């Protein structure tokens, strides 16, 4: 009885796992095979579930006829900027929250958690007005600021939880050995924290890489557009060139895919840690 029950549950579990796997993979499969089909094979009611005439033309067209190289450069610039600044600020702030006791600490933590409840759409319009007053509208710098602000509360909390896991004794030992506080931070703590730092960076990078609405709202000139904005203009038309668009989408998802695959475990750990324990 117990054995059959066990076998039953194992079967159910395998079925469930397969279901989720297919549910995630099939849309990406369809996206990818469309990007390597010639136009004639895409716009046909006789749908090919396996590309008969493999071609890279869509990628070539994407590269040569749209501003894709410009979009790519902007996306990399904005995401790198967001990632680097957010991580630096988060290291500093996270260290302060993890290692110091000070008057306004509880307030600071609550303030950060509270910002998690403010939807970005609400802040977008007044920020646009502020930006146009100080000349940050339609600039990559302005976009980076928006993304830092959007990512910093979570990254700071995340970083703090990574610091919390490192025993204080390590630093104390370094201090006794004559290391300065900053020296202890840089020489002892940060090297151990590398996975956490990378996870924070990737979190902010991916956030900036994927963001759509702010980038639409704040950027108007073509030479400053990021990939999602640049490509979304082509999707709004009724006559979508699906081959080129899917090629663009594949290019857009590659970086986040690679980064996520590498640091998935740390991001997942940190994400739950940072959000659950605050």
């Amino acid at each position: 009885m117990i054995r059959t029950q066990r076998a039953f549950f194992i079967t159910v579990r395998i079925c469930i796992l397969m279901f989720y796997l297919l549910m995630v993979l099939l849309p990406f499969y369809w996206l990818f095979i469309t990007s390597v089909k010639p136009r004639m094979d895409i716009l046909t009611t006789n749908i090919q579930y396996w590309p008969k005439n493999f071609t890279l033309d869509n990628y070539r067209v994407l590269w040569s006829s749209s501003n894709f190289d410009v979009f790519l450069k902007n996306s990399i610039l904005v995401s790198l900027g967001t990632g680097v600044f957010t991580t630096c600020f988060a290291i500093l702030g996270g260290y302060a929250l993890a290692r110091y006791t000070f008057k306004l600490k509880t307030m600071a933590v609550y303030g950060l958690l509270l910002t998690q409840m403010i939807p970005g759409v609400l802040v977008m319009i007044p920020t646009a007005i502020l930006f146009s007053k100080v000349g940050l509208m339609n600039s990559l710098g302005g976009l980076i600021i928006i993304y830092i602000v959007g990512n910093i509360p979570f990254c700071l909390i995340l970083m703090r939880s990574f610091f919390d896991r490192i025993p204080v004794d390590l630093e104390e030992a370094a201090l006794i050995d004559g290391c300065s506080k900053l020296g202890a931070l840089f020489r002892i703590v940060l090297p151990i924290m590398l996975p956490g730092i990378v996870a924070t960076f990737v979190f902010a990078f991916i956030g900036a890489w994927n963001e759509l609405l702010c980038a639409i709202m704040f950027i108007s000139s073509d030479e400053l557009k990021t990939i999602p904005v640049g490509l979304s203009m082509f999707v709004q038309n009724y006559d979508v060139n699906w081959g080129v668009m899917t090629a663009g989408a594949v290019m857009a998802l590659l970086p986040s895919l690679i980064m996520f695959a590498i640091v998935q475990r740390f991001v997942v750990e940190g994400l739950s840690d940072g959000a659950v324990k605050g």
Partner: protein
Amino acid sequence: MKRIKSKEPYYMLAPSFLLLCIFLLYPLLSSFLYAFQSYKLTAPNAIGFNGINNFKAVFQDSNFGLILKNSFIWVVLTVGGQFILGFILALALRRPFPGRNFYQAIVFLPWAISSFVVGLTFRWLLNAEYGPVNDLLLRLGIIKDKIYFLSDPELALYTVIVTMTWYGIPFFAIMLLAAMQSIPEDLYEAADIDGAGIWSKFWHITFSYIKQTIILTLLLRTIWVFASADLIYIMTAGGPANSSSILSSYMFMKAYSSLDYGQASAIGLFFMALLILFCYLFMKATKFEKAGNF
């Protein structure tokens, strides 16, 4: 390490909080003012206070009732679907199996992908002429006529809801899985000795142990889903005829397409009031203060 009197932590937090004050707190507060102003980018010379005209215009908009109804359907179905499917996935992932890490990296992938890519992919999957979903359904004889998933006003909202659900499953699964993995194994062993069944173990141990995480995640996700407009923008732009508009996407379109920042801010204030009301009711209903163990 006691460094109570030191000013260092304030310096270390300063860059973050300075940015948050200037680019989050200040805009948020100033939006209270803009909501009572005529603020159209198309008429930059006519900017000035106009009382409650913006609110009047918003509430008298004939689409407003529909948009509120849509927002409600959107939030309830999306969050509900994400939660149930995320919970099942977390349960299936709880115990280790060969290749679990690799499997996780794949099924959590949607979390790391931009709404633009997700929206584009599903639009193309569900395309009425050349999309595989219609093709397969027709071939299997499940439907007789093509389904116009995104251009049928009856269906458009639900199509985006399904996409949004797909997009958000990983987030729930990640949060719930982490909480489940913190359940001490001896609880289950003790229950086994007492002869507890599968369902009783699920209800009394798994579920009750992670209840606080469930509540917190539901709260954060509801706010997030309520406010997210990007998938709607990419897939339907709120159409056809506002049939898939929700409050946040409507607000974005008001600001972005009609450039009417005043009215958009008025919608924003209304939005904020709804959120605060929701948070208050949610915390009362779930006795959330017990969870505040920061």
